[in-house]
């Protein structure tokens, strides 16, 4: 029977844990959006850097706080590989279904951890586990998906529920829709006969 949920691939990937990490990523990206300043020179590149770093910072902060015992870091560099329980995970921004070359790249540390973790023929062993953060055109987070990538295809995609995670309330918003042209107020004559009949005596 095909596995659908992350915790079916590995018991450490619980729903609660994935939701906690997803909330950090949403918060990081939205905090970056709040600081977006086009006039000062921000563009997609600076925003992308800041957004990734803000997410990375939140994850590492959580690791360092020690409050989440299941969250640890393998690689604290800008590549950022962290672990949920024993499973190595990375993050990227983009469509879960269309990973890029960079997204697919796996570091030695990550591969080694997977080898240790999964039995030789376990189907979870050769997957790269990622959080894919999908954003709207304005940069606000639309969805966070937990993805298992095999080669170039995503064999596991689980949409992390973001209930309880505040929607973006910062300074980007959404483009307005077109202005609606309104017709003049309609005025018609009443046609019911009783008007004339009822008023015949007036």
């Amino acid at each position, binding site marked *: 029977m095909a596995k659908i949920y992350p915790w079916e691939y590995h018991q450490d990937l619980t729903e609660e844990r994935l939701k906690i990490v997803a909330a950090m990523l949403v918060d990081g990206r939205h905090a970056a959006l709040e600081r*977006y*300043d*086009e*006039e*000062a020179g921000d563009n997609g590149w600076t925003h992308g850097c800041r957004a990734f770093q803000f997410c990375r910072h939140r994850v590492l902060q959580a690791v360092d706080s020690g409050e989440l015992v299941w969250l640890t870091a393998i690689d604290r560099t800008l590549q950022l590989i962290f672990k949920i329980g024993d499973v190595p995970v990375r993050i990227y921004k983009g469509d879960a279904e269309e990973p890029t070359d960079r997204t697919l790249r796996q570091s030695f540390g990550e591969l080694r951890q997977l080898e240790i973790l999964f039995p030789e023929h376990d189907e979870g062993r050769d997957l790269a586990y990622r959080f894919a953060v999908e954003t709207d055109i*304005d940069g606000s987070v639309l969805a966070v998906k937990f993805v298992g990538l095999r080669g170039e295809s995503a064999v596991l995609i689980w949409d992390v529920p973001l209930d309880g995670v505040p929607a973006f309330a*910062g*300074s*980007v*918003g*959404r*483009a*307005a*829709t*077109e*202005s*609606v*042209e*309104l*017709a*003049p*107020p*309609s*005025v*018609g*004559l*009443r046609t019911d006969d*009783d*008007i*004339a009949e*009822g*008023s*015949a*005596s*007036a």
Partner: protein
Amino acid sequence: MVGTQVFDGERLRLARVAKGFTLDELGSRVSATRQYLNQLEQGTKLPTEEMIQALAAALGVTVRFFTLSARGGVSAEQCHFRKQRTTPVSVVSQVLARGTLLDGFVDRLDRALELPKVSFPDIPVTSTADIEDAAEQAREQWMLGTGPISNMMRVVENAGAVVSFFGGVSERVDALSIDRPRPMIIRSEAKPAACRLRFDLAHECGHLVMHKGIVTGDKVTEDQANRFASAFLLPRSAFIHEFPRSRMLNWNAIFEMKLRWKVSASAILRRAYDLKMLSADQYRTGYIHLSKTGQRKFERYDDVIVAEEPELLPSAMAALEQAYPGAVRRIAADAGFEDDMFESIAGLGLPEGSGPDSTNVVSIIRN
């Protein structure tokens, strides 16, 4: 001829207050004492035929006006206007009296014509978030999207409100709304700046949506109506998307927004402040800039944005007149109005000419 037996003193008071006359002022016009007129209004004395005619002439109503049964008058909680509690009682009474008279006329029109169905949603609010939601819900109900409101007058008129103008009412009352089966929005200034009028209409729209059955006029409800107007004209998400983000206020961009959204620069600044896109200091700086550059009352581009005109009442009268020549005058006469009283409550003149001989016409008015 009106028999003195059917003279209704309450109708006399209504017409007098609607005209803004004190008992003394009316007394001097009809050569009577204030005590005598007070007795007529109280119903403790009945006037002579001559006095009835003199009163009718002085007040711009027909003799018949005094004999009509008083339909439920407009009460204070149905009437929303700014500073109601600090507005002199005489002005409040005048507004209520005119509202009552206009309501009587509109009710007659409503029975003769198919006017837009009244569709103001009823959304009580307590928090700022509620108000933002109410504005969004209203936009959604009226299918306005999140873009600029092309014509605020049409929004409220298509939602069934009649918009009129009360000439000669104190300037303290700049706009008000009356929550009747067919709501009425009244302006006291004939031609305010376009952006100001749009904001006032959205403000009154806010009262009609959020404050059904609530006595308004205090700071809380007025602030709520202002916030509604702001949120309705400049929806949160779209505003956040468009408002220029920078350390210094970008006036060119702000005035471009003004032209696009037809909302004053001062209201745009306020919206940015309310949405925490401007700090208190930035907001103050912006306000001072507008003030120092003489734009507190008349802003840049106020002369470019075309003022919106009420269409419902004029079109209703035109449609009726076209179908039944003379009908509008007959309805006005049925309500007991002469030309000048009609103009003071409807903000419009009666159609010229008396139309066909009324004795040959079957009236469409349902009594």
